């Protein structure tokens, strides 16, 4: 029997979810003047989250706790966060094990490789930070950096390194209203468009309702998640011109349909968006 996924479709998921950033795009805005200090973190690791026993990290993107299949979530049930928070929307965490069962778990390695060799350098640039314990009204920009980062003997980007911002590397308008509460920073939802490229494919992935949450430890290192919903149709459109991708497009769209839980079209009764969450680690850095 033919496998429902091919390696190329794995690649397509990797595209969607790993945000391998090589191309540049977007607009440029001057950072707002702020009385606090600027603090920047560079993402040193990004990983897929995996569901286990209905538990997975993520956000409650639709602000609904779906315990029984319903039309609004196209029959998909919500998950529970490791800390017990209900209503977690993270269909990607269910999809990933399926993909890995078929193809092995190479994707995390691909992402780490892209970070460590400088192809996927995403910075969270916070302005107006007075305290990383408790604070509010913090603005955040997501930026793309470039260059060869320095890597420590632990295989992780060295903290406090200075990276060059990519030209036009500011990829969202400043998101506002971020807060620190007991050392945990939360911001969103905000629209996040990330221009990505893998192999010969370049397109922009659009996370409509991105949320970011991370906790800063005493060394300044951050750990948390990035969530939001993505359209598998858009992904399919974005990658359609890639070599060898065309035959896989139906599978990509099909999987999207199978797992989608958001973006209900009242006319068709179908969902077009896949809720997602990625785990992330970040270290303090400087942008030039």
């Amino acid at each position: 029997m033919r496998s429902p996924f091919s390696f190329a479709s794995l690649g397509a998921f990797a595209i969607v979810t790993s945000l391998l950033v090589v191309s540049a795009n977007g607009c440029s805005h001057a950072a707002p003047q702020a009385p606090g200090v600027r603090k920047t973190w560079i993402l040193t690791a990004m990983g897929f989250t995996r569901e286990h026993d209905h538990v997975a990290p993520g956000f409650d993107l639709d602000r609904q706790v779906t315990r029984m299949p319903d039309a609004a979530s196209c029959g998909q049930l919500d998950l529970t966060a490791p800390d017990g928070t209900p209503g977690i929307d993270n269909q990607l965490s269910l999809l990933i094990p399926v993909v890995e069962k078929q193809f092995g778990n190479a994707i995390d390695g691909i992402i780490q490789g892209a970070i460590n060799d400088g192809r996927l350098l995403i910075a969270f640039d916070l302005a107006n930070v007075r305290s990383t314990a408790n604070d509010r009204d913090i603005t955040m920009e997501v930026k793309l950096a470039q260059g060869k980062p320095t890597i420590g003997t632990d295989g992780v980007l060295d903290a406090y390194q200075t990276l060059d911002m990519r030209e036009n590397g500011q990829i969202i308008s400043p998101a506002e209203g971020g807060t620190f509460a007991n050392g945990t920073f939360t911001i969103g939802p905000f629209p996040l468009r990330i221009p990505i490229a893998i192999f010969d494919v370049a397109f922009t992935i659009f996370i409509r309702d991105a949320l970011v949450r991370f906790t800063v430890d005493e060394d300044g290192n951050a750990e948390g998640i990035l969530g939001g919903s993505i359209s598998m149709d858009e992904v399919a459109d974005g990658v359609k011109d890639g070599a060898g991708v065309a035959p896989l497009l139906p599978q990509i769209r099909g999987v999207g349909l199978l797992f989608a839980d958001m973006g209900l079209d009242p006319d068709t009764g179908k969902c077009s968006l896949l809720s997602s969450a990625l785990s992330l680690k970040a270290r303090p850095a400087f942008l030039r």
Partner: protein
Amino acid sequence: MVPYRHSLRVALIVGATACYSGGPLDPPAPPVTTGPVGAAIASPSAAQRLTRVQYANAIRDLFGAEVVVPTALEPDIAGNGFEAVGAKSSTISARGVEQYETAGYSIGKQVAANPTLLARILTCTPTAPDDAACARIFVSALGPVVYRRPLADAEIASLSAIVTTAGTAFASFEKGVSYGIARMLQSPHFLYRPAAGEPDSDNPGKKRYTSYEIAARLSFFLWNSVPDAELLAAAKSNALDTYEHVSAQVERMLASPKARDGLRNFVKEWLRLGELDDLTKDSKLFTTFTSDLGPMAREETLRVFDSLVFEKDADIRDVMTTNQTFVTAKLASMYEIPAPSKTDFAPVDLPADGLRRGLLGHISILALYAHPTTSSATLRGKFVREKLLCTPIPLPPVNLSTGLPEATPDAPTLRARSLVHMGDPTCASCHRMMDPIGFGLEQFDGIGRLRSKENGTVIDPTGELDGAKFGGAASLGHAIHDDPRFAGCFARKLYQYATASEISDDEEATVSALAQRFALTGYKLKTLIAAVATSPAFRAYGDPK
């Protein structure tokens, strides 16, 4: 034995020139800020052998920077904490003789094969591979520069013979030149700085340095290299015989870029920064440790000294408190500051409110004076005592368990463990002198990165310097800056380095006088260097042992 026959007058200034007969506690006479410092009482003279750096600098200055100098040379041996002092007593081993031979031929070959380099030292055009006249011209020109003195006729004949013999053997005059160079570079006249002296006509029965020996003393102290043509000319014309004459040369020499080599070498030897080449750190624990970190950190420290002395002519004590330093991108990340340059060292101001200040914030010092896996309040405190304050620590007792207790919940930090350790009176007598200083640097880990906690406990960075409490690394730097022993230690270390001596009781007055002059002239290191170089003691011949 002709080499030292030339009778050049070196009228040494003998006797005290100012009023510094006592120690620093004696009330000084009206401040004197010019003129020679101290008395003409010197330690025994001896033939210092060229250190590895001096050998390399000499080759650069004799033949050109293009020459690749072999690095496998007799290792330097430190004496009293200085390679310069060790060079006065250590010998050259059989392997060293072999290495100097290899190096000599390598350099000779490079020079002879390079027309540009050859043209600098060969002024005649040979008419045959064994052109004796040209060989003589070559040897007569190069010999005095390599041996730093005029050559005797017999020496010229002997060296010329090697040139023509080798030239004949290989049917190439240039080959002969390469053997001539190799011959001179293996000679003890080059490898050592012999100080035979000459009778001092002003002090019958006593000796003084020849003017050529004075020239070499000046150039190796100020430049860490051989005298240049002008200095040799001054020696030849007997223009190094008075304080004024020497002062003029010292002023000229300190204005030369080569003076920076001299300063760097002093700092490197004094602070033992050479050891950074073999820095061992557990790179699993210290994830930013790489083998280039030690040399890089040394360069930072040397640049800070260089800048304070030659760019700013600042009060050198500021080295303990300045927030200005020089960093690469790597050092910047370890200091948690934006990198000012992608590719090279660049000047940077450390954050005004940061803990890192001055020399004691340098990774060079913090990493060198620590263990491979941990910091060490003892090693850092000992460094401050011995290198910065010149207060020696007694040797640790033998036959005694000197270990620190393990970290426990009750004593999770190095500080707490050390305090347990110091509960033992035998240990406490010495560790009291070191550990409370090092506690102030405990917020820097074994590789010099900032940390706030150790084993989950917030680090207490307060400490004590001889009873005066301080609040942390920055205030420790200020305390040392203001400590008169620090400035005095500069004078002592520089004098010791310059004279390559174990300072005798008779020389203590000179050291005190130098410290006093240093204070009176605003703690300018250049001024102190000049004061040492022109001091009667530096220029006085001490009877050899």
